[in-house]
């Protein structure tokens, strides 16, 4: 019988939740790395027992942990993230040039074809790769040196490279997203990059339609339709059907188009999910109602999903890396909150229940569907 493993990163450690395919009863393991911030944990699609975790602390800096047994035991691997060549300067909050400084790893994306290859998106924004299971890291500096870096600037949460999408149909192509720079695409395995932000509009910028500087919160892709991308921007939900070359708004009837995560149903490439948040000044759901919105039409027409979710006095946030889907026949949707709940739906969002309720603030949720 298939089973599911949910990898949860929180402000104070990692937790691993497991269930059988029914997804009704859950076992909770953890905290792993108790007291440390776990920005992300993700498993290799090639070897599901190979997990990578980003562990960091304001006191002790960045560590990367690796597990070869599905999270039962962990080994610290290399934590040297050294920018390649001249690091250069980006734009600081006050508009002045500011040198790139490594702060932490936001996101780890294991390769689709090799368990020892994994990408790391870091703050200050850059992309690193390991091809030896985390034993060493090397920057793909073509991104940072792409030419627009001087105009990138940190969002309030820092200038993080938070999203890495690998194209399953073309191993030379990948997408990354940076707050606040935008989306970039490579078609040569990470050597060279170009910004793909045409159609985005960000009113906080002097030129709202500039090529870079957009605060993209998350992008998502369905593996069967890799040229179609979905985006939750700081404000606006967007889609592209030409590999990011052009974006159109699909916010439609959402109560607010601010938010952080966006994800795609495992079997329906036009079914997408967002969690509307009231505003960038108030990082909580509108009306105190925690609602996931689902569109079955690839955007514009959205329906609220509320069954099992708190519909009064709820003021949590759902962060950008804190939503994931499983690949069981009846697709499961999962998200974690800054209030420490992880909610799951075993029926594609029709109904929800908390699978754990009192964790530290949840930063990241990933799901593995195990045979």
């Amino acid at each position, binding site marked *: 019988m298939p089973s599911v493993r949910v990898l949860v990163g929180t402000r104070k450690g990692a937790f691993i939740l497991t269930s059988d395919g029914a997804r009704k009863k859950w076992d909770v393991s953890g905290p792993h790395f108790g*007291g*440390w911030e776990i920005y992300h944990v993700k498993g290799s699609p090639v070897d599901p027992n190979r997990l990578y975790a980003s562990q960091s*602390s*304001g*006191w*002790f*800096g*960045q*560590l990367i942990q690796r597990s070869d047994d599905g999270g039962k035991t962990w080994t*610290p691997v290399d*934590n*040297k993230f*050294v920018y390649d060549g001249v690091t250069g300067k980006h734009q600081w909050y006050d508009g002045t040039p500011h040198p790139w400084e490594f702060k932490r790893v936001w996101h780890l994306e294991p390769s689709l074809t090799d368990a020892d290859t994994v990408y790391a998106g870091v703050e200050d924004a850059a992309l690193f790769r390991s091809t030896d299971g985390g034993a060493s890291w090397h920057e793909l500096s073509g991104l940072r040196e792409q030419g627009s870096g001087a105009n990138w600037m940190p969002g309030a949460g820092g200038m993080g490279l938070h999203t890495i999408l690998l194209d399953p149909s073309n191993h030379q192509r990948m997408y990354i997203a940076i707050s606040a720079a935008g989306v970039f695409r490579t078609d040569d395995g990470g050597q060279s990059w170009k910004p793909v932000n045409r159609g985005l509009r960000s009113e906080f910028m002097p030129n709202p339609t500039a090529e870079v500087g957009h605060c993209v919160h998350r992008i998502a892709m369905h593996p069967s339709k890799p040229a179609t991308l979905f985006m939750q921007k700081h404000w606006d939900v967007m889609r592209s059907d030409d590999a990011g070359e052009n974006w159109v708004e699909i916010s439609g009837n959402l109560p607010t188009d601010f938010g952080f995560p966006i994800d795609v149903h495992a079997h329906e490439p036009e079914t997408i999910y967002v969690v509307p948040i009231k505003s960038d000044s108030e990082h909580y759901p509108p009306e105190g109602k925690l609602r996931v919105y689902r569109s079955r039409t690839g955007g514009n027409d959205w329906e609220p999903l509320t069954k099992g979710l708190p519909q009064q006095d709820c003021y949590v946030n759902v962060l950008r890396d804190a939503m994931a889907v499983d690949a069981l026949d009846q697709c499961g949707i999962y998200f974690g909150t800054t209030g420490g709940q992880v909610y799951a739906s075993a029926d594609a969002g029709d109904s929800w229940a908390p699978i754990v309720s009192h964790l530290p603030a949840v930063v990241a949720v990933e799901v593995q569907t195990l045979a």
Partner: protein
Amino acid sequence: MIRVVLPYHLRMLAGVQGEVLLEVAAPVTQRTILDALEAKYPMLGGTMRDHATKQRRAFLRFYANQQDLSHQSPDEPLPEPVARGAEPFLVVGAIAGG
């Protein structure tokens, strides 16, 4: 033997309990102690000082013999009681709430 006291999280990371004992050739300085510590416990690399610049991480302090040595040169010899193992070298994390 040089005695080193690590904060809780670094003891957990290194898998040690209590004080760490190190062989350190003279001169005994912050740098030679940290070099020996990182050689014996490679997982501690980068957690107390920057990999490249060797600068102390901002929220850590180095104490010994009832003195804060954090702002001394990393190459300055440490007090004699530390060098002969009578007093430990303490790596201390900043106090913080939350």
